[in-house]
């Protein structure tokens, strides 16, 4: 009898313990691009995030592929919120998908931590207390590119980007900092691979430099075709077209190109060195900036979870705001509209042995925030 009571008691204890632990558990829904064009980006974000939350028993992650289609992303988000009952959503790469998913998600009281897309609409008037961007506001890297163009003495830039929210943010960002005049401004089709027509226009425009934002496979095509065209003017761009995942495909055409990034594998701090080494041993390849963003997103989530329960929404949000984690980028703070305040570096594409990679050459913008803070009423 006594024994039985003890066992019963032990069961009760275990039961209550698990109830207690439940409050610390967080269910994460990750919607990202894992198939088709641009899947390299989603895979890197996923791998970075999963590396960060590995061995953390309180986090469970559901991963779904959005195929880079807004309608599919919305369906997945609805299902994750309504039937899987996730607490936090994350993962979206593309700004047009983020615009379709994020507002509805945060309005239903869920948190959204963006590991990549940072459209201006969600930083300004559309900002929300439950929306945090761990990567950058879309304009940021392009602003740094504009700043770099001034210091490199460019006077007449030809600028191009795809016709979607992030593309518009990109050109706006560059123009905000670039003091010279524009030789031309083109919006290309999202997913376009052939740039013969655009390159002919660049040749005819008399530009002294090119700024372009063409993430994923788009940039590979552009760089290869541009280097074959025989036009010899310098190129600057954000890190997206010169990142680890695609440098190999671009090949030597990328050598020497200056690009701007909030992260680089040669940033010297403990968190970053550990991240680069762990990522290499876990996946057998060098991490990209997308992987670093996914990783930081995971670390941010863990930092808030260690201080507050997810059900205690207000406290949890406050802990997120503090950004009390060691970022791979070194210094990291959130601005009032929940976007990073961070250094943006200028990198150059170099060859390390046989591998193309990036090296930091200077700090482009120090403690850089974003211009939309004042528009955000939060």
């Amino acid at each position, binding site marked *: 009898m006594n024994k039985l009571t003890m066992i019963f008691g032990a069961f009760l204890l275990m039961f209550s313990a698990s109830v207690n632990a439940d409050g610390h558990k967080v269910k994460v829904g990750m919607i990202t691009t894992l*198939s088709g064009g641009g899947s*390299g980006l989603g895979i890197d974000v996923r791998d970075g995030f999963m590396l960060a939350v590995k061995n953390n028993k309180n986090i469970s992650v559901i991963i779904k592929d959005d195929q880079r289609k807004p309608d599919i992303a919305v369906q997945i988000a609805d299902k994750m919120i309504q039937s899987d009952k996730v607490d936090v959503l994350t993962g979206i790469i593309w700004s047009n998908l983020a615009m379709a998913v994020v507002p509805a998600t945060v309005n239903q009281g869920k948190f959204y931590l963006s590991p990549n897309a940072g459209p201006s609409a969600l930083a300004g008037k559309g900002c929300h207390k439950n929306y945090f961007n761990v990567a950058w506001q879309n304009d940021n890297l392009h602003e740094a590119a504009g700043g770099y163009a001034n210091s490199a003495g460019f006077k007449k830039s030809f600028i191009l980007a795809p016709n979607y929210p992030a593309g518009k943010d990109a050109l706006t960002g560059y123009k905000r900092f670039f003091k010279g005049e524009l030789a031309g401004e083109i919006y290309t089709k999202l997913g376009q691979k052939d740039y013969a*027509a655009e390159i002919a226009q660049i040749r005819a425009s008399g530009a002294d430099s090119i700024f372009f934002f063409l993430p994923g496979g788009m940039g*590979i095509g552009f760089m290869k075709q541009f280097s074959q065209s*025989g036009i010899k003017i310098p190129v600057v761009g954000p890190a997206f077209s010169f990142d680890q*995942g695609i440098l*190999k495909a671009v090949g030597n055409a990328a050598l020497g190109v200056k690009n701007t990034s909030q992260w680089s594998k040669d940033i010297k701090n403990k968190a970053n060195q550990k991240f680069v080494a762990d990522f290499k041993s876990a996946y057998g390849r060098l991490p990209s900036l997308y992987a670093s963003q996914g990783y930081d997103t995971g670390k941010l989530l863990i930092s808030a979870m260690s201080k507050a329960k997810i059900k205690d929404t207000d406290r949890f949000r406050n802990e997120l705001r503090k950004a009390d984690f060691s970022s791979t980028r070194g210094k990291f703070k959130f601005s009032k509209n929940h976007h990073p305040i961070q250094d943006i570096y200028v990198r150059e594409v170099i060859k390390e042995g046989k591998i193309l990679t990036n090296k930091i050459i200077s700090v482009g913008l120090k403690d850089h925030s974003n211009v939309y803070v004042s528009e955000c009423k939060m």
Partner: protein
Amino acid sequence: MALILFIEQLLNGIQFGIMLFLISAGLTLIFGVMGLINLAHGSFYMIGAFAASIVAGLTGSFWIALAASLCAAAIAGVLIEVLIIKHLYKRDHLDQVLATFALILLLSEGVRWLFGAFPLYLNIPSSLDGSILLPFNIMYSKYRMFIILIGILIALGLYFLISKTRLGIRIRAGQNDREMISALGVDISKLYTIVFAIGAALAGLAGAMIGAIQSIEVGMGEPVLILAFVVIVIGGIGSIKGAFIGSILVGVTDTIGRVFLPNFLNYFMESSNASSLGSSIGSMLIYILMASVLLLKPSGLFGKSE
């Protein structure tokens, strides 16, 4: 200056058209002879590009890689035709669409499983690097010129094959009356396999040639497939000549529209608005072209009217 730019863009349009022709020629042949809607045609484009990239990595030769793309796509074509497609000829178009759509998913996932999701690369040979000086002081990429020449050679070759050889006679006969040609003792199933392999090989070659200046990744065939369908609808389903004219028409319309529409709109509005509106309308132009052709000639430019 403006004229030179225009001619250069015209060449770009023609080059784009030639590439579309290589894909749509196979598509239209397969539809014309077998009556099969093959959505998986874009997968051969992808297979060709992947094969070329891998063979170039092993041998270091672009030319062997091109040959490999032809062979790999043709072999894949034969395998898929014999194993799967063969059973679809007698089914209706809905079954064909469903089955070949499933094939797209299978092939894409298979390629991703084998080679990963990160883009591969294929470099053009140094003999085709850089540009050449054409008359009127036009600088044009050697490699794109090479694509145009290869495309024209293939178009001539196909013309010769269809109009002058025994195989061509059978293909034309197959288009006209399938039952009759098999009643005359022609091994129709072998003919189907050959036609399917030719179509697949051409798409594979296009994939390799384009892969060298773009990126080689999973799913690269699907956007091109949509354009190829636009081409064969404009040109008339089943007609090689229609596919050629349709390709050039689509290529030139798309390129010229994309470039000159924003410039034209610039006269009326502020430059960044003009650029974004112009490129939006520019990307619709080929569909507008298709709609207008269908309005005037419902079975396409060179299609047989029902």
